[in-house]
C-alpha cells in the first residue's frame, strides 16, 4: 500500500474553512489525508501549531487563510504573513524541509483552489515520505550526543485506535 501522508491543516474560519466546505458540498474529488483545525484567523496561528503537528505525527502541514485585504479582522493575515515569512526561513535553516508546509490564501468562494492545495500538498508530501525524522526525535539521550539504545525497541505503538489513521472515505 502506498504511503498515505498525514496532513494537518490550520485554517481560518471565515475564508479557507468556508472554502473547504464549498469544496465538499461541490463534491470535488480530493485526497482524504487532511485533518482540518479551524481557527478564527490565521493571525491566531502560532508557529508552535506547526511544530506540534509534526511532533504528534503529521507528515505535512497546511496553513491557510484570507487573501490580503480580506481578513475578517482587518489585519490578522498581515501579521500571519510576516510571522510565517520568518518562520518558514527558520524551519528551512534548521533542516525542516519547507516542502512539508504549504501556506496559502484560499477565500470562501475558492473551493476549487482548496482542492488543488490539498491534492498538491498530499502529492508533494507523499513523495517526501513519512516525517519519521521528526516523529522519532525523543529517544533516550546520554551525554555525548549519541542516543542510547532505546529499551523499547518496538517504539510506542498504541493499543487504542489512532484517530489519525486514514479511515474510509465516506463521501
Amino acid at each position, binding site marked *: 500500500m502506498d504511503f498515505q501522508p498525514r496532513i494537518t491543516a490550520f485554517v481560518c474560519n471565515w475564508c479557507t474553512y468556508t472554502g473547504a466546505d464549498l469544496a465538499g458540498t461541490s463534491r470535488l474529488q480530493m485526497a482524504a489525508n487532511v485533518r482540518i483545525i479551524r481557527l478564527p484567523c490565521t493571525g491566531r496561528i502560532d508557529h508552535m501549531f506547526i511544530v506540534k503537528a509534526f511532533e504528534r505525527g503529521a507528515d505535512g502541514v497546511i496553513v491557510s487563510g484570507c487573501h490580503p485585504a480580506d481578513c475578517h479582522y482587518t489585519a490578522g493575515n*498581515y501579521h500571519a*504573513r*510576516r510571522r510565517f515569512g520568518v518562520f518558514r526561513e527558520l524551519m528551512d*535553516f*534548521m*533542516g*525542516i524541509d519547507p516542502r512539508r508546509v504549504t*501556506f496559502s490564501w484560499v477565500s470562501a468562494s475558492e473551493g476549487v483552489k482548496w482542492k488543488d492545495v490539498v491534492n498538491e500538498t498530499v502529492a508533494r508530501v507523499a513523495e517526501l515520505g513519512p516525517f519519521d525524522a521528526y516523529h522519532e526525535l525523543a529517544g533516550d539521550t546520554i551525554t555525548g550526543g549519541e542516543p542510547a539504545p532505546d529499551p523499547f525497541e518496538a517504539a510506542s505503538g498504541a493499543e487504542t485506535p489512532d484517530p489519525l489513521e486514514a479511515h474510509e472515505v465516506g463521501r
Partner: protein
Amino acid sequence: MKELRDLARKLLADGDAGVVIGWEEGRRGARPAFITTPDDADKLIFDARCVHNLANYLNPRKPQVKALGKPAVVVKGCDAKAVAGLLREAQLTRDRVILIGVRCGGVVQTPEMPAELTEATVATRCYGCDVREPKLVDHLVGDAQPEPPVTAALDRRIAELDALSPQERWQFWTGQLAKCTRCHACRQACPLCHCERCITDKTQPQWIESSSHLRGNFAWHLTRAQHLAGRCVGCGECERACPVGIPLSLINRKLQLVVKDLFDYTVTDDPEVPAPIGAYAVDDRQEFIE
C-alpha cells in the same frame, strides 16, 4: 578609565544613581560590577574584554538589581540597542535609567582573553557594527576608537549552511541540539528574553516540552529564535553563555538576515522605530504563499 570613574563617583555621591553597573577586574578577566558607593568607583574598567551585555541587568524581573536603586548602566552600542528594545517594549521607562555610553572599538570573544583585537580574536558581533558611538545615552565617555578588525566568519558559515540540503542541515542541527541540557543560559543571558513567565516554563497547556530530548530542544530553540526575530541585537551573549557550545549566533544572525531581506529592517538603538514583528505592511513579501 578615569572619565568613567569620575562620572560614576559623581552620580553616586549626588544620589542620582543608586548603583552604577559597569565592569571590573574579576579573577578570570573582566566581569560585571555593581558599584554602590563612590569609593568603589575606582574598580570600574573598560577595555576590549568588556564583552557582557549589561542591559541584561535592566530586566524588570531582577528584583535583586532593582533593590540596589536607580541604575546607571555603562553601555556599548550593542548594549544600547538592547536597552532600546526594552524601552520599545515598555519594560523600562527612559527616566528610570541613566545610560553611560562608551565609545567602543570592538570586543574580543571572551572576557578572559587578552584585550588584543585581531581578526582571530574579535567577537563576531562586531562585524558591520554601526553603533561604535552609541546614541541612546545620557553621557558619553571614552576616546574615539579605531574600527575593529573585520571578520565575516559568521555570515560565511551561514552561507555554507544555506548551501546544504535541508537534510544536511537537519544532521547538523540535530547534532548540535542533542547537546542542549535546557539550562536556559541562552535565555538568561539575553536582555530581550524578559518575559515574566517564559513560554517554555508554562504547563497549562505545555507547548514546549521541558525534557532535553531533541523534540523538546527543537521546540525550545525554534521558539526562542522566532520570538527574537527582529528583536535580537546580535550581541552573541546567548552563545557565550551556552555551557555546551551550541552555535546559537548562527540561528539568530540568520534571522537578522531574513528580517533584513523581508522587511528591510535592521535592529536600531532608536526606541521610536518599531520592531518588524507586530507591525506589517500591506505589500509585504509573500512569494511563499500559494
